[in-house]
């Protein structure tokens, strides 16, 4: 634990135990999403699905990166991950991104993907709002993750016909915003 680092956050008026719980729940959401996206990606097949597989894979890998990036901050603040994986799964801040009943329904898969991203966008916006000007490190991390979640949402939203995302897909590397926390 970073004793002084935690003290600084407490002195800024943040309930650190609540913040840690929030970070653990979001870490659980990232890891479970990584798992569910693996299943969704496997089912994105055929003429319609194949074109979406690439972005689903990028979002999957970046969600795993978000989990990896969140963990050190949880421990720095004096928190920890639950010892029981089942407990961790049940703590998730977002609903499971389960495969739709008809796995060939690509639009239904896209809706699951976009809803998962929207839950994440709301979650990290919330953490940013909570920590802005008070906990600079958690804010920086949450903002980096938020940037990537927003891009994920826009990719899937574009495929659902909700309008252009406005940017290209990743060019080789993943996590352009979060990578600084993974070194």
């Amino acid at each position, binding site marked *: 634990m970073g004793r002084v680092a935690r003290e600084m956050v407490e002195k800024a008026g943040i309930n650190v135990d609540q913040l840690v719980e929030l970070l653990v729940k979001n870490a659980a959401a990232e890891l479970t999403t990584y798992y569910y996206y693996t299943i969704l990606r496997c089912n994105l097949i055929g003429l319609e699905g194949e074109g979406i597989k690439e972005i689903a894979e990028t979002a999957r890998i970046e969600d795993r990166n978000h989990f990896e990036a969140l963990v050190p901050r949880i421990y720095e603040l004096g928190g920890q991950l639950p010892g029981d994986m089942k407990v961790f799964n049940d703590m998730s801040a977002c*609903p499971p991104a389960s495969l739709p009943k008809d796995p060939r329904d690509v639009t239904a898969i896209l809706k699951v993907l976009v809803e998962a991203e929207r839950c994440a966008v709301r979650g990290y916006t*919330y953490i940013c*709002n909570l920590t802005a000007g008070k906990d600079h490190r958690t804010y920086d991390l949450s903002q980096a993750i938020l940037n990537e979640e927003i891009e994920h949402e826009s990719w899937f939203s574009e495929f659902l016909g909700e309008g252009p995302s406005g940017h290209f897909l990743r060019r080789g590397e993943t996590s352009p915003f979060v990578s600084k926390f993974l070194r």
Partner: protein
Amino acid sequence: MREFTEKELAEYNGRNGRPAYVGYKGKVYDVSHSFLWRHGTHQVIHNAGLDLTDALQKAPHNDEVLKKFPVVGILVSFRKGKQHLPH
């Protein structure tokens, strides 16, 4: 429709098997079956059994999220004129 005082609403906090109700702009919503309100808590900080009108103004979502939940009553305090000013 049932009328709730704030004290009565507080009993529906989602804990120990109780339903989870939240107040918003005079209406009482049943969020018991929401994944995001498990154990009567939302985003660690917000608790069921309360009028969340003010809190929702600061939330990273609008009140459309409440549309999918059944309205189970009205808040007496709101009817009596204790309304919330927009931020």
